[in-house]
């Protein structure tokens, strides 16, 4: 299964406070371990939301707001995509991660939808509809 592992933002990350050299080294080592274990598919750090934009949807309306956004603890500061056998394995690996932030911080693990998740529930009609939609948005 694949999971997205999301490092949640803190006041420090939102303020753009750079990590210590020590943390950078520890993080690099952790990333190397992920690669050598064959589970790392992708990963990136995100700039603070002061560089972000948000598009709000309401019916036919679209409103664009500039960052920074206020709900700091709900924001994402970085992510990985991992291929793991199960959630237990993902948890075990996250526990090995150095604390990515200065203070207390959270890392969320979210499984990605995979093909198997749909095979039971999707009727041919839904699949055809989905294919049509994908085509329309230009995949």
């Amino acid at each position: 299964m694949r999971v997205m592992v999301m490092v949640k933002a803190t006041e420090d990350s939102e303020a753009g406070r750079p990590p210590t050299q020590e943390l950078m080294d520890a993080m690099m080592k952790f990333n190397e371990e992920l690669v050598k274990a064959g589970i790392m598919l992708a990963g990136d750090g995100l700039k603070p939301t002061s560089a972000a934009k948000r598009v709000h949807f309401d019916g036919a309306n679209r409103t664009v707001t500039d960052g920074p956004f206020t709900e700091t603890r709900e924001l994402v500061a970085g992510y990985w995509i991992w291929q793991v056998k199960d959630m237990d394995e993902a948890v075990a690996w996250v526990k090995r991660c150095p604390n990515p932030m200065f203070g207390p911080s959270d890392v969320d693990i979210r499984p990605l939808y995979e093909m198997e998740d749909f095979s039971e529930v999707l009727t041919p009609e839904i699949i055809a509809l989905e294919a049509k939609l994908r085509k329309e948005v230009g995949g």
Partner: protein
Amino acid sequence: MADDTHRAIETVFRIERARLIAGLARLTRDVGRAEELAQDALLVALTEWPQTGVPRNPGAWLLTTARRRALDALRHARMRDRKHAEILRQSQDAEDVPAQLDAALDDDLGDELLGLIFAACHPRLSREARVALTLRLLGGLSTEDIARAFLTPEATIQQRIVRAKRTLGSAGLRFEVPRGAARAERLASVVEVIYLVFNEGYAATSGEDLIRPALCAEAQRLGRILAGLLPDEPEVFGLLALMELQASRFAARTRRDGSLVPVTEQDRTRWDRLLIRRGLSALARAEALGGAHGPYALQAALAACHARAPTAAATDWPRIAALYDTLLAAMPTPVVALNRAIAHSMASGPGKGLALLAGLEGLPQLQDFAPLPAAKGDFLFRAGRLAEARACFRQAAALTRNGKERDFLLARAAACGGKNRG
């Protein structure tokens, strides 16, 4: 709660297992013994960790624990021979400086794991044994899983693994990474074993047992591990690129009834962009390391031609045909030659395809090979020679063992018009 702790410990063990066995195999020079020692260490962890918590470096903890047991056992065996005495001496040196162990572990574990991979894929073992042993030792699959995946009785797999371990034991392997001239040959075997595992899973269709697709995931994981441990080996990246690119098409390659969709007819919006990106970057790495002409890199380059084309019509057939020319030189098999003919027919028309097929039709290996008359039927159909095309499609339909494919070929025969018999 106790269950949760148990599960967490077992997960840590699962993550560490291969490296643990690798470290212990180097110490004992006996994989069977290494497996037992690893299992013993798990039992100790299951009693101690619920009290002490999971140690900061669980891999090092498990290895130290298992080593201690191994050394105790060796002492009890009273150093029956020089080999044991020597191993014991070396190990005691290490044991005297536990602080060094941590650092040494971090440096060596990758190397030890590689040593185990090379041992499991040792050319002295049969191909089947290499595959089974690799899945057992590196993938942590049970013999039952392996048996199911290969549609083989479990007893056969068990036998195969036991015998393979014995062969490795009697070969006096040191479980080290081969150096020098032997290395290239040994690495070729490792790459081949991983691709065999991948292919076994890839050949399965969605309706089948889930264990077979799991083989692909396992092969990809092994490929990624190998690339992480051997970042300068072009063929490893060629293999990885090939697997990532082929896997990127999983969701699109079967219909709901389980039949296969040819690559040119697949819904490209269902291709996995992340895997394509990973595949293309692995291919770029293989080429940058000078490995563009390796057989795996060439096949990956072929898969990349499809991955890069936004639509089937935009496929760069001349490039695919040229890549097949090169691949045929590296892998002169009849199947590659057949695919080359198909590629040239797409690049320059059915006449070119027919001309290339003419040279293959007499080959004994392709005598009862359904794809050959199927391809010929397609060339003839596109050339407007419908009656001949119909005969070829019928011949192919009679040869194939796959029911879905037979239906498809008979439908193509029918599309050629004319009288419909049997």
